[in-house]
């Protein structure tokens, strides 16, 4: 028997591979990114970074309907983007297994909010599994595919940052190596319009099918081994705990002897199992991070329990927080330094090519509508050059709303700033909206040739796809032409050419209509990677050519 130390993300990829997954797709987003990066190394699996999460889920649903198991990965806020297909995929069902990984980020280590995506499982009526360590992440991935096929439904696998990025032992490879089991469904689309074509008449039937499926899932939750009671003696105990995911590990850390109902299937909840456990303990605690999802359900069932009165609803738990909530004294007082050290803030990497554009935007006193990615760091010192940040692609579209109501002294001072990957994800639709509706706006794409913040994933603008295979890249200038932008409103500048950036802002900011400025500077980390692949010179030459071909203010005679 061999063991391996795997992160939660790597374990999900392993489980999916072992389950014979045919398609893996998603959009990069911390903490989910490494799942697909790991799976992409397996030649038997088709993988792609999709343009955005909605696209990824639709590719996944299509694959599942055509009989191939599909794994779709995203961070928690990605599910917002994918919510449209999600809710109706619960109606159509899947044929081959479809597993959607949502990687939530309690404490917002790398996110703009800390939404609890268990709420999506409830709202979309999709079952959800939540593992506690890497071994479970692998097992639950396989279980999720089985559940998906057995009950003809997409299945959520919920991870959190702490699980995705923690490593623990994964064991029991029978022959020293993992084994890929062929998926049980034969590939091939089998037409069934009443199941797959969701016009109202069909959807009404599927709504009822979903309700029937749910009865079966509720029954399954009562007996599935993913939900288990751990207790040392059968008799009544003064205190008991219901928990799941990472908080389970903290409960075991600080109070290993307490009776625990550990939930692996967190939606639907097993009512009889919960009632039976609650009846066997005096005081019942519900230990769950973020929203009181389990607690609220228990209280609706009339089960007395202590949840958010003892444990915070905001941020990530720690062993100390769980100990305090349970009233356990763990003793551990740490060292107390007498010197307070200054905060070390994140920032753009030293020498980042897009450092200059933020300095210029500040110097020009622009109102900057920002976007997701490395460039969000433009809000911090020393730049202090970003005024709004909401969600992927919002920079262009929020700037449009601002411009409509801006008083005269602010018109012409509003700029949107977006990275290349984010532009492809949902910035292009914003550009289209601006052109179509006749907005005035200066939209700046900071193109660094990669999806940098999440660790250098290719994107539709970068000329590569997953695994660094060559791919077509969108030509900004041709895109602008197709959108009827006048040539003098479009230009590219070198990110290191401070003078050119400043002149471009001066020239483009006051002009009417839609203006697109592309600031081109290769990410330093991406540059190091390209150098190792002997592709750096070629890429730099290509980008230099583009800049020369498309100066600000239209082509030179």
């Amino acid at each position, binding site marked *: 028997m061999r063991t391996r130390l795997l992160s939660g993300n790597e374990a999900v990829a392993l489980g999916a591979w072992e389950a014979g997954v045919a398609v893996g797709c998603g959009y990069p987003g911390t903490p989910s990114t490494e799942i697909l990066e790991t799976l992409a190394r397996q030649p038997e699996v088709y993988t792609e970074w999709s343009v955005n999460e909605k696209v990824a889920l639709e590719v996944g649903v299509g694959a599942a309907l055509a009989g191939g198991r599909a794994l779709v990965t995203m961070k928690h806020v990605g599910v917002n983007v994918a919510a449209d297909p999600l809710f109706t995929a619960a109606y159509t069902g899947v044929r081959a297994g479809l597993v959607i990984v949502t990687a939530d980020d309690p404490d917002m280590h790398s996110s703009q909010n800390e939404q609890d995506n268990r709420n999506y499982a409830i709202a979309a009526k999709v079952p959800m599994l939540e593992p506690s360590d890497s071994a479970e992440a692998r097992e639950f991935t396989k279980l999720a595919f089985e559940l998906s096929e057995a009950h003809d439904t997409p299945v959520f696998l919920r991870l959190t940052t702490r699980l995705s990025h*923690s490593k623990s032992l994964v064991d029991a490879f029978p022959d020293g190596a993992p084994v890929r089991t062929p998926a049980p469904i034969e590939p091939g689309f089998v037409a069934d319009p009443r199941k797959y074509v969701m016009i109202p008449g069909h959807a009404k039937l599927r709504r009822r099918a979903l309700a029937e499926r749910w009865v079966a899932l509720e029954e399954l939750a009562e007996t599935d081994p993913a939900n288990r009671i751990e207790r040392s003696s059968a008799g009544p105990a003064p205190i008991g705990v219901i928990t799941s995911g990472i908080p389970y590990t903290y409960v075991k850390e*600080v109070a290993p002897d307490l009776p625990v109902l550990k939930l692996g299937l967190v939606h639907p909840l097993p009512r009889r199992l919960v009632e039976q456990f609650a009846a066997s303990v005096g005081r019942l605690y519900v230990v769950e991070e973020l929203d009181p999802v389990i607690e609220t359900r228990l209280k609706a069932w009339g089960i007395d329990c202590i949840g958010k009165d003892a444990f915070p609803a905001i941020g990530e738990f720690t062993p100390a927080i769980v100990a305090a909530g349970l009233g356990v004294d763990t003793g551990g007082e740490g060292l107390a330094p007498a010197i307070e050290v200054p905060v070390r803030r*994140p920032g753009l990497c030293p020498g980042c090519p897009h450092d200059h554009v933020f300095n210029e935007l500040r110097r020009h006193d622009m109102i900057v509508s920002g976007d997701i990615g490395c460039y969000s760091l433009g809000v911090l010192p020393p730049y202090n050059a970003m005024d709004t940040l909401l969600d992927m692609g919002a920079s262009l579209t929020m700037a449009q709303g601002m411009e409509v109501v801006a008083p005269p002294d602010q018109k012409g001072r509003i700029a949107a700033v977006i990275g290349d990957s984010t532009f492809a994800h949902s910035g292009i639709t914003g550009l289209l909206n601006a052109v179509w509706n006749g907005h005035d706006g200066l939209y700046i794409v900071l193109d660094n040739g990669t999806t940098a913040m999440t660790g250098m994933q290719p994107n539709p603008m970068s000329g590569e796809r997953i695994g660094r295979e060559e791919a077509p890249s969108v030509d900004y200038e041709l895109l602008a032409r197709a959108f009827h932008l006048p040539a003098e409103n479009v230009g590219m500048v070198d990110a290191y050419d401070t003078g050119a950036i400043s002149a471009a802002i001066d020239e483009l900011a006051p002009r009417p209509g839609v203006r697109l400025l592309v600031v081109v500077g290769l990410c330093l980390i991406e540059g190091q990677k390209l150098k190792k692949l002997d592709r750096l010179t070629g890429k730099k030459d290509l980008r230099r050519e583009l800049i020369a071909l498309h100066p600000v203010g239209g082509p030179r005679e």
Partner: protein
Amino acid sequence: MSEPVTNVLMVGVGGQGIVLASDILAEAAAIAGHDVKKSEIHGMSRRGGPVFSHVRFGTRVHSAVIPEGAAGVVLAMEPMELLRWAPWAAPGASACYLSAPILPVGVEEYPDDLEAEIDRLFDRVVRVELAAIRRSVPMKVRNTALLGAASVFVPLAQEHFAQALRALSPRGTYESNQAAFDAGRALGGQQLKEVAHVE
């Protein structure tokens, strides 16, 4: 509480190789037959920000996160980061750090008297002078040198570290990583002896 678990906290600044060094330690513990968990956070907050990794091993490890006040060893690639994480260290903890201050962006002056404060807080301290390894240990493997120095506080055999280094060193770098580890371990051992002599 659970059975005793060895808790090693490894901290530094983005780009100093904390993640790889902690992977090597965790792998060594796994090779030695322990249950192992490690925890860190990648992503946005790490661009130039502080980086940390929790490594825990023993008969059975539940939480991947070291409870506050429970780390027995703290390895730091930077002095200020050692102090920042001191509240995670248990009374009587050991520390091993690289004496190479890195000023945070936007901070003008490095705090004074960090060394004295580190000596006061921790029971045993191995201080790796940058000067002592600047020439002999290339920048890229200084993380491994520090791991070697800290290994004198960690109940794992050298052969387990060697196997882990062999398994996890990036291609073509095993020899330089092993050499850096050995150099660090020698420095650590030597300093512990000197402390014992003075006492």
